[in-house]
């Protein structure tokens, strides 16, 4: 079998470094995957597969870091987007699509009464914490250590470009430790505006953690007792666990909810949604951007959400994800290796049980990419509706070869 090589990706990257800071910025920079054994630039996609600039094709489990929920180039979504494109993409005003999409989300998600639209997840998580501050007239925001809520300065990773006041009112607690939340609430009594949380813990470079029984419900109670706004960041998991929102899957009720990735199958749209009592505060926060109202994405979202519901996509994705997780565990064991598979089946992640430094993961992912399967070594994966049993089977065949390489290099567990 001829292994994939990445010469054009590297060539293009060298060109990029001359005209773009760091070549590719943020988490899509090659440094975060397996430089040299991973594609850097994409060309086209269809279903659960995409091609990179070298012409290599992958069965993809990264889905553009989440948005591709149906599959690349989905005909129904593309038709809806095309139809809107013919009418026009951006205007002086929103189009009826904005109202239709807000109505659709309000119908779909029992916990919400209103929505405001942005482009990226970061737009709406920032808006949600501002709405919480406006509603409570308080300053502090509590978030879980290691959680990712976007690239705006209140929660930005690293130090570049930040000053202390950007994050001085953002405090961290430990996931699944309600006492650590309560400690902060007590310490900053009367000054905590909001608690923002993902429905389960999905930090990069780590196993995923589901909520311990009662954890999210306890946070709800803390918020009620102390008049704190409870914000669910469902940007990553939204519409992959439950079409009514991931809080339904875990049995709790947030005050504000943020959606983005799976909303529109790759079109740039995000939403901050909330229940009635928070609507006036949300109105008072100036929230806009040149493209926040652009219609093509909203039309795509309407079609995508319909498709997800109509085709019962989550049930199918759960099945495919379970098959992948079980299959990987067994295939690893067949090669004398122990792996941990964590997270819900539609957003699985794998680590090697005998290491903490990801060297086995990096070798595994690099070898899988060379064989046409894209599994990120450090970031959770995403299942799409387009994944079929045959794709999972092919993935497991490739995984078998890659586990054999890992076990040869590092020894059996």
């Amino acid at each position, binding site marked *: 079998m001829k292994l994939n090589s990445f010469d054009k990706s590297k060539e293009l990257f*060298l060109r990029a470094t001359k005209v773009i800071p*760091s*070549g590719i910025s943020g988490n899509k920079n090659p440094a975060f995957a397996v430089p040299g054994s991973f594609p850097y630039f994409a060309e086209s996609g269809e279903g659960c597969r995409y091609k990179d600039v070298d012409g290599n094709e992958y069965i993809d489990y990264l889905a553009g870091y989440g948005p591709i929920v149906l599959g690349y180039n989905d005909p129904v979504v593309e038709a809806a987007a095309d139809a809107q494109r013919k009418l026009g993409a951006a205007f002086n005003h929103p189009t009826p699509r904005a109202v239709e999409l807000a109505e659709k989300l309000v119908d779909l998600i029992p916990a919400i009464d209103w929505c405001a639209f942005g482009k990226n997840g970061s737009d709406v998580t920032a808006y949600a914490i501002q709405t919480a501050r406006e509603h409570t007239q308080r300053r502090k925001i509590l978030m879980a250590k290691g959680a990712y809520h976007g690239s705006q300065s209140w929660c930005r990773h690293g130090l570049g470009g930040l000053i202390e006041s950007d994050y001085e009112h953002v405090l961290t607690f430990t996931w699944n430790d309600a006492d650590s939340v309560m400690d902060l609430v007590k310490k900053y009594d009367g000054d905590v505006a909001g608690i923002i949380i993902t429905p389960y813990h999905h930090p990069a470079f780590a196993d995923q953690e589901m909520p311990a029984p009662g954890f999210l419900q306890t946070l709800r109670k803390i918020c009620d007792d102390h008049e704190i706004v409870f914000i669910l960041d469902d940007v990553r998991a939204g519409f992959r666990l439950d079409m009514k929102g991931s809080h339904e899957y875990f049995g709790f009720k947030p005050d504000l909810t943020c959606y983005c990735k799976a909303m529109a199958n790759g079109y740039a749209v995000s939403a901050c949604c909330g229940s009635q009592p928070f609507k006036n505060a949300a109105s008072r926060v100036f929230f806009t951007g040149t493209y926040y109202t652009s219609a093509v994405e909203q039309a795509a979202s309407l079609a995508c959400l319909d498709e997800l519901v109509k085709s019962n996509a989550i049930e199918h994705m759960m099945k495919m994800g379970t098959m992948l997780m079980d299959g990987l565990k067994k295939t690893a064991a067949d090669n004398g290796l122990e792996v941990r598979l964590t997270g819900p089946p539609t957003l699985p992640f794998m680590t090697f049980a005998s290491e903490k430094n990801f*060297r086995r993961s990096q070798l595994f992912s690099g070898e899988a990419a060379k064989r046409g399967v894209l599994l990120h070594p450090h970031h959770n994966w995403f299942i799409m509706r387009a994944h079929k049993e045959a794709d999972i089977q092919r993935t497991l065949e490739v995984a078998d070869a890659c586990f054999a390489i890992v076990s040869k290099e590092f020894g059996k567990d």
Partner: protein
Amino acid sequence: MKRLPGKIFSTALVKAGVVEATTERDLIRAHMHLHAVLPRLADLARLDDEARAIISEMNVAIEFFVPGGPKVVLHFKNSSVRAVRTGKADVCLMFPTCKMLNDMFDGKKVTPIPIKGVHRMGDLKKLTRLTDILTRYLKPSQSEMADKEFRAKHVELSLLVGLAATEAIATIEAKGRRVASHMPSGTMLYDVKGGPKAHVIVKDGKIEVFPGAIKDPTTTIEIRDVDLAVDLVKGEVDTFAANGSGDIKASGGLALADEYNALFDRVGLYLS
């Protein structure tokens, strides 16, 4: 003269208007000068013949300190140098403020106050010769850099200074403390191909730096060659771009590398 408790002494000087209050920046730089730059004399004993000859003639412990600020004791004994942060010395040099200490490292004329061991002028002269050699490696001329062997030594010493200086960022700087508070523990190997190696041990936010390799590091940073490392220690490399192009290869625990790099990137703001 009896040693006054440092904090009281420095506060009194500030109050009397003799010296200015220490800023966070001054304190960080002083910490770096004493705990990242001066300890490199130990590496100089290994890397430079002339320095080794001078060190072999010394048997003395020399202390640099700022009252209420950082302190280092350099033990010269048995042809080697050991830098520690506590204990007694034969010669004590006091710098009334961090700024004065920093001025000296910046090449300005500063006379420290000898508190003990004034008579050991010979040792102090030798120390000056050693720091002159160190400065030559850390701030080399173009002609010196033309020599391949010299370049490798420049890179090793500069890399060790840069890595060791991250400790001051992690413990003193408000921004750095934020990063250090969630930096995972582990070890990092810096491997300059065809050149030196150095490693960093991070444990519960504490940072220690050593020359040479370490077995089974959490994270490995391979640097293409000495020339790239020269630019890297000057802070002139876009490390994300270099990672993608393969000039720098980071493998293993990248969460540690990522957090640590955020500290390393800031060293140039204080040392140049």
